[in-house]
């Protein structure tokens, strides 16, 4: 009896020691069974395209639509920004963050991984166009930006890319667009999974040249000769011909356009079209007004904005004056 007990115990101890004495199996254990370590470039570029949608974040509502004097909130505090020419750090960096951490990060991974793969030359060049698109948004919003070496934090361990002048950024954008657009097509595989054009190289080329036109036009005052050079190249290359060529990010209920869901949800009663925009539409009998605008006649707050008092007649619409402060119109 006694002996059996000792032996049992020793067996337990030996097992315990086999467990403890080594680190066998640790490498396998520390490799996730469900992680994706290698992914086709198409979904990765698709993600970059999806996140390049310019209306992706609230930055647009708080700053861009107000700076362009299209839509404003007359309420301050968290919605204060372009409407009152105020700083609002929570939202002013969102375009920066979204473009660098989503669009550029993923586009650059595709560019780096597929630069030498002739069969995937199309996805490589599509990624260069998407990166250039992001560059235009970034430099137009923020001026001088890190761009030429941006997005290489993991691949080249470059954690602090240098700032490039806006001039250098545009030079890079233009030459990238020129090379990438020209290189599309050929014998490389058609990337049918892309969410902009389903791999249609002709449409991608038109997108690339149209973007080149936009970028070149940005230089029309600071560098007219370069501007002219690239406008000429863009037109010669072939621009978008019809609405079928438009680069559309197809937001859906699963991937809502944040601007839309904000305006239909929590900020529904807090945003108004601006007076300059409504006045312009009315003065020019613009047909977009009755599509875009609704007025709840007599409504004094969100709760009384009901369909029963809604009017979409262009003549009834009133724009919110720029800079108008808060709820002077509210009756409590």
């Amino acid at each position, binding site marked *: 009896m006694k002996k059996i007990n000792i032996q049992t115990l020793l067996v337990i101890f030996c097992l315990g020691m086999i467990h403890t004495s080594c680190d066998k199996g640790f490498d396998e254990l520390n490799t996730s069974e469900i992680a994706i370590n290698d992914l086709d470039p198409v979904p990765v570029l698709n993600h970059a395209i999806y996140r390049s949608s310019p209306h992706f974040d609230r930055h647009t509502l708080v700053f861009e639509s107000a700076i362009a004097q299209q839509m404003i909130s007359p309420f301050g505090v968290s919605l204060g920004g372009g409407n009152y020419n105020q700083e609002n750090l929570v939202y002013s960096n969102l375009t920066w*963050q979204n473009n660098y951490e989503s669009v550029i990060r993923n586009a650059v991974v595709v560019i780096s991984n597929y630069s030498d793969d002739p069969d995937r030359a199309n996805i490589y060049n599509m990624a260069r166009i998407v990166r250039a698109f992001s560059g235009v948004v970034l430099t137009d919003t923020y001026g001088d930006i890190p761009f030429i070496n941006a997005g290489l934090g993991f691949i080249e361990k470059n954690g602090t890319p240098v700032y490039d002048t806006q001039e250098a950024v545009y030079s890079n954008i233009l030459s990238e667009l020129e090379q990438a657009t020209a290189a599309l097509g050929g014998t490389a595989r058609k990337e049918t999974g892309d969410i*902009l054009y389903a791999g249609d190289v002709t449409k991608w080329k038109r997108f690339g040249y149209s973007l080149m036109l936009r970028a070149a036009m940005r230089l029309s005052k600071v560098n007219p000769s370069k501007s002219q050079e690239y406008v000429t190249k863009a037109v010669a290359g072939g621009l978008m011909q019809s609405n079928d060529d438009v680069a559309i990010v197809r937001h859906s209920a699963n991937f809502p356009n944040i601007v839309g869901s904000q305006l239909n949800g929590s900020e529904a009663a807090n945003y108004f079209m601006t007076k300059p925009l409504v006045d312009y539409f009315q003065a020019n009998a613009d047909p977009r007004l009755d599509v875009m605008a609704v007025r709840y006649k007599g409504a004094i707050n969100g709760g009384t904005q009901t369909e029963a008092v809604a009017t979409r007649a262009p003549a009834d619409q009133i724009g919110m004056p720029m800079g108008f402060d808060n709820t002077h119109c*509210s009756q409590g």
Partner: protein
Amino acid sequence: MKNDLRYQFYGLKKAFYCVFLLQLVLVGWLPAANDLGEIFTDLEEKNISGTVTSRNGDALIGVNVLVKGTSIGTATDFDGSYSIAAPDNASTLVFSYTGFHTIEIEIEGRTTVDVTLEENVTQLGEVVITALGIEKSTKSLGFSTVKIDPEEVTVNRSANFMQSLQGKVSGVNISSMATGAGGSSRIRIRGQSAFAGDNQPLIVVDGIPISNDRQYGGTQGANNSDAGDGLLSINPDIIESMTVLKGGAAAALYGSRAKDGVIMITTKNKGKKKGIGITFNSNLTFDRAVDDTDFQYEYGQGERGKRPTSPFPDSGVWSFGEKIEPGMTQTLFDGEVVPYVPQKNQIKDFYDGGHTFTNTLSIAGGGESGGFNLSLSQLKNDGITPKSGFDRYNLSLGFTQDITPKFSVSGNINYSREIHKNPPQIVAQDMTTTKTIYTLSNTMPLYLLEKYQRDAEGREIIYSRFRNRTNPYLAINDHFNDVDRDRVYGNLTMRYNLTDWLYIQGRVGQDFYSQDQILNFPSLMAGIAPAPAGFVNGAVTQDGRTFREINSDFLIGADRKINDNFGVNVTFGGNAMYRRSDRNSIRGQDFIVPGLYTVANTRVRDPLYEYSERKVNSLYGAVELSYNDYLFVNVTARNDWFSTLSPEERSVLYPSVSGSFVFSQAIAGLPNWLNFGKIRAAYAEVGSDTDVNPFSQTLGFNINSNLFQGPTSVQPLGTVSSSVVPNPNLRPMRVKEYEVGFNVQLFGLLTLDFAYYNKLSIDQILQAAISNTSGYTSQLINVGESENRGVEMLLNFAPIRGKTFSWDVTLNGSYNTSEVLKLGLDDKDVSIGGTIRQVVGQPLGQIYESGYLRDDQGRKIFNANNGLPLNTSVPIALGSAVPKWVGGITNMFQYKGFTASFLVDFKLGHDLISSAEFDYVRHGKHQKSLIGRDQGFVIGEGVTPDGTPNQVHVDVQTFYEADARIREDFVYNAGFWKLRQITLGYDFMRIPGIANLLSLQGLTLSAVANNVYTIKRWTENMDPEQVHQIDGTQDIALPMVRSFGFNLRAQF
């Protein structure tokens, strides 16, 4: 080349351990080892027998009886009797028993030696459970430990028993969260040891670590509720003893799990008396919400100085209306005209009374060779938030059995079922009751809110233009969140005493739980976008988690006297830890059938599966040398191998050394009034095992769970999975700690324990920010350094100690201060964090927020055009969030069978930044927002940028909304003094003859009260403990709960 050398060294070390282990295994096989005891039996001997009893005459079972100077020993049996064959020349017997003073009795030729053992009422000669469950006498310890009397958690109770200990344990900072009865606690020992993480001690039950992870009741953005922590599972009635190992040296044998100390819990595994004993404990407490607000009630609901006068006003959370005059009315909802009068009891009316009813039945058996303890417990809590509550069912079995005189088996198994019903949403914007109730306009009658929740079409009725201030009645009626957890933990231990000085022990334990959760976001809420046609909006989430941690360990211990002066105690062991957690979750959004909250009824579903898995293997050893029982030196080492680290960094060694000198015993001729005195010192290096995550060496991709619409087909989206660039050279952080201390007992009345410690935390993993223009936001590096230092004091004093009346005072206090030493590779890296920051040269947890822009003379500067206050361009230092002083004072009186105990506790020397007060100002409820209302405008007191006095008139509401954005004024001293507990008890056994009734062995009735009274606080409309976290930020959590009730304990 460097790497190669390192690898060789690593290989050698590994080989060394393997050989060492092999030797130990072989030694274990030596047949002689278990026969050593018999060698001594050949000497001439005589039989000595007797009984051992306690002072009140109870037979003591299992008392160790030893013939002094030999290894001949036995233990008392069931009746307290023993019989020992002592050599003829033996002169002294030694009787030792846990919880009693060890005594030596001269045999003087007798054959019968009866002994009465004195219970060890002071800590001094006590035995405590130290790391790995090893029992040691307190005087041998070179570090600070605290023993906690289980009575502290079983009479004046909390659902989470740790909360009952707040203010009672020297050097241990316990905080209860204002998140509901089933909420979590926070425990900090010797400060915040790292910038990141919980910094909570390891919890060990019967030698096996268990999880104390916090459970969140919500997973989606708008859900933030507290579903307790690992300690919440424990039924306090099964606790036999509890020890806090405070410092690194005390906890050193836990190596990488030891940086925040250890709470060692030993559960009951046998009855204290012979035969079967039954204990029944019943506890009923009533909970009441405490209203700490002091709002203004002069101006009622409304904005811009106007009260609501037409239907459906949306100013329901603003009190910027008109001055309240007698006879005024207001129009609310669909035209209800009601008096415009203050509603001062919104908080107390909404948070109705809760109660907690706990019943425990324990059956314990004791015998000569073993025993058991079976405990069944039920806790039912009805929370102060309507429709919320927490139920817990516990079933625990502990047992111990000697199979042979040398071989024993013990173990315990604990099952708990924890059911959280709607743990309140805290700090969330939607579906929280607290934020709405506290910001609700001060003239809004609650009954109208209850009446107008949804319109005829089922849509939320808007009463506030802040749409995420959900109507609190709608939130409690339509939002549900159920968290159920089943947990089983326990262990099985086998111990074999090879000789009376050498044992081997094997132990395996597991902590396993499975947690299911279902929660919804109700349909047709105004604050979220409508669903596509054919659906109603809303969401439901089902979430399943499992957790498993297995620890298998072995221990070999030897304890020998080398000669009359020297003793040596050697322990060697190893542990294999495996931990895995899995989470399986699915969220469905937009419903087909309104009101049917199941995933199958949804339009779009987001599945999630994730898991985490790690192993840590360890070997450890300890050597204690003692000299004449008054000088002790203890050296330990533990080596851990981590699965989560790269092979080069995988092996880490954690050493410690400590010493104790009992000078009262060593030095002759000390004055009589010095009953006991010892000094101690210790140094240890310990660490953390969780700061490097599994699978963190690689960077992969994630695939979005929904497909994206392309021009012709739907397509997957994939993205680089992390914003953090992996660093293969990461290693766990390390704490280097030394402590010195002393313990004296004077005049038989006063005990003082004092400790000083210095705790240096190095190699803390920080997210070294890289520019996000690199596509990534950070890289993890081992760079952070910080230091905690402080003193701990425990004073026990008995001003009166008589036969019928006694008065005991226990005072515990600790002072901790910290300093951030290093935050980056560059000297310019002086600060990390946002509102709560770490700043080099400052204590941990600095509060930084925007302040008022001021001129040279300190006058506030206002915008010359709009008259609004200007803020500093960068956040400024406003306070320090970590308490410096923590402690408590207990006064306990005993008179005949009555006891009365009063606990006053305090935390001092820290600040908090209150989002609640910010809300109260901008919603017009704060008294501060009254200034200027009578004249209809505010003129900010200060100057315009050119230095002229500000004279701009600003609309009242506009001013306070802007003013509130500057957070400077919302930083408060977070200190407090509270009368935390009152316990009044009567021991009915003092009534003559009562013992014969129902063969009662004990009957105690206590009246208990908790959170009785706040003696001092510095905050305005809140309690400084009305928080859901301890980082120094505060948002509107549940009101404080004052509870009172009764505890009845009967023993048969």
